[in-house]
Each structure stands twice: as C-alpha cells, then as structure tokens.
C-alpha cells in the first residue's frame, strides 16, 4: 500500500525544483564573487567582531571551503532548507484535516500510522533532490572557477545534514498533528526552527550558557568543521536521528488518538 507515498511524493516535486533553482542562483552568485573577494577576506575577518563569526560558525573565509561553508551552508542550507522541511511537514496532517481530504483518506483500509509515515516518507523527494543537486552544483561551480572541493567532505556536509533536516521535519510533523489550523502549524514550525537556531548560536558564545543550545538540532551539525577541518561527527548525527525517531513516535502517538 504505497498509494499515499506516491501521490505525496508527486506533491513534493515542485517545491524541490524551486529550492534547487534558488540554490543554483545563489551558488552562481557566490562562486562568481569568490575570486574577487578572496583577498579581502582577511580584512573582513578583522573588521567584524569575533562573535559574529562564532554565531554563524564561520572560519577560514579566504578558502573556498570556508567561504562556501559560511555563505551557502551556514545560513541558506541550515536555515532555509531546515525551514522548508519543517514548513512542509507542518502542513502534512493539519492541511488535510482542514480541507477535509483526511476524511476521504481515512475512509480507505489504511491505518493512521501508515498515513503519517507515508506522508512523511514523501520527503525523500526534496531530501534526495537537494542533497544530490546542491552537492553537484557546488562541486561543478568550484571547478569552474578553478578551485576544488574535497569530494568526501562535500558529500559528508550533505549526508550529515540529512539527520538535521529530518529533525526539522519531525518538529513540523508534531506541530501538524497537534495544531488544528494549518497556518498556525506552519507558523509555529517556522518559528521553532528559527528560535532553535538563534538559541544555539547565541548560547555557544558564552561557555556558561552553552548547555542551553544542546536542545537545538543545529548543535549537532557543524558545516564548517566538516568542510574546513574534515571532521565528521557521526555520533552527533546519531543523536539527531534518535531525536527524529522520538519526534515521529510522538507524532504518530498523538495522531492515532486524536479526533479528525
């Protein structure tokens, strides 16, 4: 019984293509900019206070790895794609309940658990499209301007972001199951991803408060460490996966108990 997965996957194609196009444009912009600004990056690093760089996890801006980690991954990937996953997930259940299509879906011989999991499963489309697409765009763009990436590090920056994006989706899904109005659920999901990102960024500036950020998913994904230092935090990725599974279990438990 994969009818729901199929139809939901189709619905994810458009958003994935649009996001991929956005990243293609962004990459073209930053890669064409890099040769010109490379020399000035030292000046930039001196000009801004250190906490700005810590907040975004930025290092080694004069290298292509540091520059792309800062410009594309630390902001657009973590925040924009994270928000996309949370936002889409927040609409999965609440949207169907609101427009009453959930009535028809659940009149079929399909369990509520299966409905949630198939709808969530359809996120494989943006997950694969963006991770493969953006990795290729970045790799080819670097070659085009005469730079090069370590392909393993580039693959890892995407691979290890998958658990992070899944946690964002999990947050959205729980909100989608718990909040009746799709707009409220989406707004809450968007807000949650931004707030968690901010809390983690700010808390990491002060060792006394660093523990607060441990609850935020961005703590467990460090694009600069991967790209610049080639450090792959597999344990942190595991923490994210466990968090994702816990969120899914919570969403399913809430959904099978609630009235539609």
């Amino acid at each position, binding site marked *: 019984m994969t*009818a729901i997965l199929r139809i939901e996957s189709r619905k994810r194609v458009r958003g994935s293509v649009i996001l991929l196009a956005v990243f293609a444009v962004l990459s073209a912009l930053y890669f064409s900019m890099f040769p010109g600004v490379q020399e000035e990056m030292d000046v930039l690093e001196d000009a801004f206070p250190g906490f700005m760089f810590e907040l975004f996890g930025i290092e080694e801006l004069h290298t292509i790895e540091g520059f792309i980690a800062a410009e594309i991954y630390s902001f657009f990937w973590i925040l924009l794609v994270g928000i996309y996953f949370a936002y889409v997930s927040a609409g999965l259940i609440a949207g*169907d309940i609101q427009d009453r299509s959930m009535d028809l879906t659940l009149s079929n011989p399909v369990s509520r658990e299966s409905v949630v999991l198939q709808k969530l499963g359809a996120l494989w489309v943006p997950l694969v499209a963006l991770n493969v697409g953006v990795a290729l765009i970045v790799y080819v763009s670097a070659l085009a301007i005469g730079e090069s990436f370590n392909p393993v590090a580039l693959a890892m920056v995407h691979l290890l972001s998958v658990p992070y994006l899944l946690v964002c989706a999990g947050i959205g899904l729980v909100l989608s199951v718990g909040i009746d109005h799709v707009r409220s659920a989406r707004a809450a999901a968007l807000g949650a991803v931004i707030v968690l990102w901010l809390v983690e960024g700010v808390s990491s500036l002060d060792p006394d408060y660093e523990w607060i950020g441990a609850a935020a998913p961005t703590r467990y994904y460090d694009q600069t460490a991967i790209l610049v230092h080639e450090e792959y935090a597999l344990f942190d990725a595991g923490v994210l996966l466990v968090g994702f599974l816990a969120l899914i279990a919570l969403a399913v438990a809430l959904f099978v108990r609630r009235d539609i």
Partner: protein
Amino acid sequence: MSGQTAAHETEPTADTATIRLDGLTKQYGDVMANDAVIFAVEPGEIFGYLGPNGAGKTTTIRLLLGLLKPTAGTATVLGADIRDRRALTQAKANVGYLPDTLGFEERLTGREVLEYFARLRGDERRDELLELFRPPLDKPVETYSHGNRRMLGIVQAFMHDPDLVIMDEPTSGLDPLKQDRLHRFLEDERDAGTTIFFSSHVLSEVQRVCDRVGIIRDGELVALETIEELLERGGKDVRVQLARPVDPDQFVTAEMIDVELVDRTARFTYTGEVIELLEHLVQYDVTDVDIGDPQLDEVFKHYYGTDSQETG
C-alpha cells in the same frame, strides 16, 4: 422487549446488522452531538438518517468511520467495533464513503484522483459507474463545479463494489435530473444487495428512496420507523386560495390537521391521499392551490412532540 429476553440478547451471537449503534455518544463540552444513539441498519436496505442541519448526522457518520472517538457507547460497522482501530481499518475495504465536503487533491485530474483511490482499495466497477456519472475526468478537480465534484465522489464511493456505502447529504449540489439518476442508482444497488446509509435534511428525498428512517434531533434519535409509517405521519403542507369564504364545518375534513382558515385562505397539513384532497377541493371555487412537503421542523413539532426550548 421483556426482561426475560434481554438476557439472551446480550449473549455474543453473530451480529447480522451491517451497522449497529449501541448507545453511541459524543460530547463536546456541554453539547451532546450524539446522545446515546441506538439503532441498527440491516443488510440490503437503504437507511435514511434524517435531521435538520446541526442535528448530529455528520457526527454519527464520522464516529462510524473512526474519525472521531465516542465519549461513551460504541457501534459496529460490518461487524467491526469502531473502538477497535485495526478491525475497523480492515472493514473499510468493504465500505464506500461520500462525505458532505469532498476534499480531493485539487491539482490532480479526476482520472488521477480515481487512480489514487483505486490503488488504495480497488476499482472493479469504475467504468460502469462512469457511464452513469460523468465528471470531466481529464480536467483538474480544482476546476470542477459542485455537481461534478459530487459525481466524482459517487464514483469513488462505489467503484470498489463495497457492501456498505455511507453517504452524507449525497444529493446536495446535484441538479434534479442527476438527483433522480442517483436515487434510481441507489435503488438498483440496494436490490443488488448493497446496504446504503444515507443522511439528509430533505424529508421528500428520504421518503422517495429510503426503506427505513432514523430521525435525529439535537443529538438524540427521536424516531425510527419504516417509510410507510413516516408517510402516514408526514402529510402534506397545503395552502388553498378560495374565491369566496367557505363554511369551516363543511370545508375541513378529518384528514386536515392544524387548520388555519383566515378569510379566503386555508392552510393545513393533509394526512390523507392527495387525490382525495383534490376531489374534495373541486367542490369549491378554488383560485390557487399549493401542495408541498412539510418543513422538517414542522414534522418534528407535530409528530414527535419534541420541544426545542433549550436549543434553537
């Protein structure tokens, strides 16, 4: 039922009813959307579930489909207890459902929507149904008129040849011609053995197609009877315009109730045969006659003695 037979009834015997409601209750705060509703729908009948808007019809249907959880009581659908999610999910393979609001995937074409439902539960009767009900299959559902949406809904509800079809206000949005077609289709389906549970707020529609009727008001089942019994009680709303005033003693017959005779206008509910009424009326100098179905609220007021002081 006497006390002696009650003990036998509670024994676990094979339940032949297609739907059985057993004290089904759904409470929202202080509002009893369904208040200990009890009735059974037998195999191969068209059961009309009649009540004014907001009476609790849709709540019952959503409880039966497992979309809502009962506050108290329970029901069985094709033998599956609605509180047993797994059993109910399996039973749904043999249930068709036409909701009051049809939430289709708007961007898909009608054909793609049917493909989707076909994958979920089968479509052995799709082509046959599309000869009767013809939504524009190659257009996206978002461009559909209300009537086309409903026709697509009817096709998806019947195309897997279910044993039971639950329909929530099925004729709303259909023009009279298509309403008739649906009514005839439902009778054929009933004759072929399908059980149909049919909610409506239109008395005449229920009178026309249903074998038995349950009437719900303010969440309570107020009547459960065959259509013949309902017709006897139902009567017609009649307004007669006369050329000159008449003698009430002569004009009013035993079949007329709630008569209001003011000047040259007579209003009453007629409980006999319409032909007899017409034969009676030709004796008078009648300028205009209007014979119609009584408002559902009138039926309740006159025949079920329910007072609705507490709710509007």
